[in-house]
């Protein structure tokens, strides 16, 4: 055995393991540029909407006509680059403000679903027995209901408002977390370190918080990143169906509804902005989620 004095150890460990800060910076450098850029852009657009948007999204542009054409259309002007809608409002400004709804609902809805799913999944996996049976039967019933139908019904109950939609989507999408986290916890429960903690007399709460939750956090994060896109689509679908964010608040989904009738009369300019941005946002969150999955779980790298 080589004699290593305790004072040598820190030097060795800094050599092989970079500091937390440097590791953090390293990950930043590896971030997928395309998807991170798009997501960052959309979040910034949502935050700074009042400064970016050329017009008030809620009132008619002065001197503009109904269904004014976009800048490349006949009689279009740079004042309203994407044209105006049925109430002569600026479509570009509404699209920019619409990012707020998607970002807020996407993030908070996913977070609520994630917290409920984490609690349920960990409880079912760790306690087992009747707790597990009850939770998993509810999960099964939830999964047997078409998610959008559940969301529409709950929206009809709670009434249209953005925060209601956040709550509803949280309550609707928790099951995907619960199922997967439960099975992870089931195998974690059998590991040595959890058994040792039990022998050492750690309380159940302590074991869950100290040993179980940190070990499922990676999976949780990947699930969350892949859920954001689903929640954004769901919000857009609900708004499209008229049970989402109420008018006149600009939301991409409800802008598509307004655009649908105009589309048929050959005025497609209402949907360019929202359709493009929903597509881009969801594409970017999925790419980012895939990247995160591969990053956090090397076993998944085959696709």
């Amino acid at each position: 055995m080589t004699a290593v004095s305790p004072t040598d150890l820190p030097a060795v460990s800094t050599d092989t393991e970079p500091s937390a800060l440097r590791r953090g910076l390293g990950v930043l450098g590896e971030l997928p540029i395309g998807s991170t850029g798009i997501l960052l852009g959309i979040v910034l657009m949502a935050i700074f909407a009042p400064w970016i948007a050329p017009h008030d999204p809620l009132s008619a542009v002065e001197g503009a006509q109904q269904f004014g054409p976009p800048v490349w259309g006949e009689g279009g002007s740079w004042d309203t680059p994407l044209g105006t809608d049925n109430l002569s409002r600026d479509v570009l400004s509404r699209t920019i403000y619409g990012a707020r709804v998607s970002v807020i609902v996407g993030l908070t809805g996913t977070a609520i679903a994630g917290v409920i799913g984490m609690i349920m999944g960990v409880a079912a996996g760790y306690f087992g027995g009747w707790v597990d049976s009850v939770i998993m039967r509810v999960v099964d019933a939830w999964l047997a209901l078409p998610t959008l139908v559940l969301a529409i019904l709950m929206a009809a109950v709670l009434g249209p408002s953005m925060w209601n939609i956040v709550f509803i989507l949280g309550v609707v999408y928790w099951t995907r977390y619960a199922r997967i986290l439960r099975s992870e916890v089931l195998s974690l429960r059998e590991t040595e370190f959890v058994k040792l903690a039990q022998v050492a007399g750690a309380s159940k709460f302590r074991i869950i918080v100290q040993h179980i939750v940190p070990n499922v956090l990676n999976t949780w994060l990947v699930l969350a990143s892949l859920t954001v896109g689903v929640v954004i689509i769901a919000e857009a679908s609900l708004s499209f169906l008229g049970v989402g964010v109420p008018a006149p608040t600009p939301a991409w989904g409800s802008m598509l509804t307004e655009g649908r009738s105009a589309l048929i009369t050959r005025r497609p300019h209402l949907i360019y902005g929202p359709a493009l941005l929903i597509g881009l946002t969801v594409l970017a969150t999925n790419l980012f989620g895939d990247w995160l999955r591969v990053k956090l779980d090397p076993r998944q790298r085959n696709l």
Partner: protein
Amino acid sequence: MRTFFIRRIFYSVITLVILATTIFGLVRLTGDPAYLLAPEGATEEELQSIREDIGTDKSLPLQFGTFITDLARGDFGTSFQNGQPVRDLYFDRLPNSLLLVAAALAFALVVGIPAGIISAVYNGRWMDTVSKVVALTGMAIPGFILAFAMMFVFAVQLQWLPVFGIGSWKNLVMPAIAVGWYFAASTLRLVRSSMLEILDADYVKLARLKGMTERKVVLKHAFKNALIPLITLTGVNFVVMINVATVIELVFTWPGLGSLLIEGIRGRDFPLVQGVTIMAGIMIVFANFTIDMIYAWVDPRIRLNR
């Protein structure tokens, strides 16, 4: 196997009971249907007589009892809106939904399988990259956004296809692609990954060594084995599709089950909403049950593992 079978049936029934109870409660929270059924400015007596007609004047436990006993006999009740049995309304719309889903599934398989095989055989080459991009956008772009894009290009600008409605095969093209889009991408992914795995297997290498042409190796040996997970996925997709088609149905005003359900929700037509959702639930539970059974039959370890 038998205890496993019985326990699974028991679970399925419990799932359906939870589902039925949830739906029963949820629709009743959406409000009083009498207001929507009565003419404008109806008096309280008129409203009350409507409630007596449709049975919502009774206490909730009583309504629930009738609902469950009728359900057990396969009776979904009568629609509040037009007095027809919900079962008739359901089976009127079912063929339209099945037609749409069948077409969407066909689209998904016709695009997904060849693209998946090509992508696996030419792994890493440009054709693989193209398929990967298609798969990725397919998973990411919501069907109804695609529906809008197609509607504008093919119906409004080029006028090749009708904007909405039902009747000829032309009406089916856009809704089917919009519904099948996502599933084409997931089929592609699945076929690609299972083909990649199989093409690496020893028996495939042996077939090559025996001097078989590559074409025969791929189609006869490899693809046949990739079919097993594909069949499962397709079965699941079929059931899922009937339920996700709702928004697409509304975009194209396709008279399927999704639009029936939305009509029911808007009109607070409790029996209609209950009937359509429970039928969807039964299909999903049955599909899951069948898959569980097939897996347990193929892999005995699952039977022991709760």
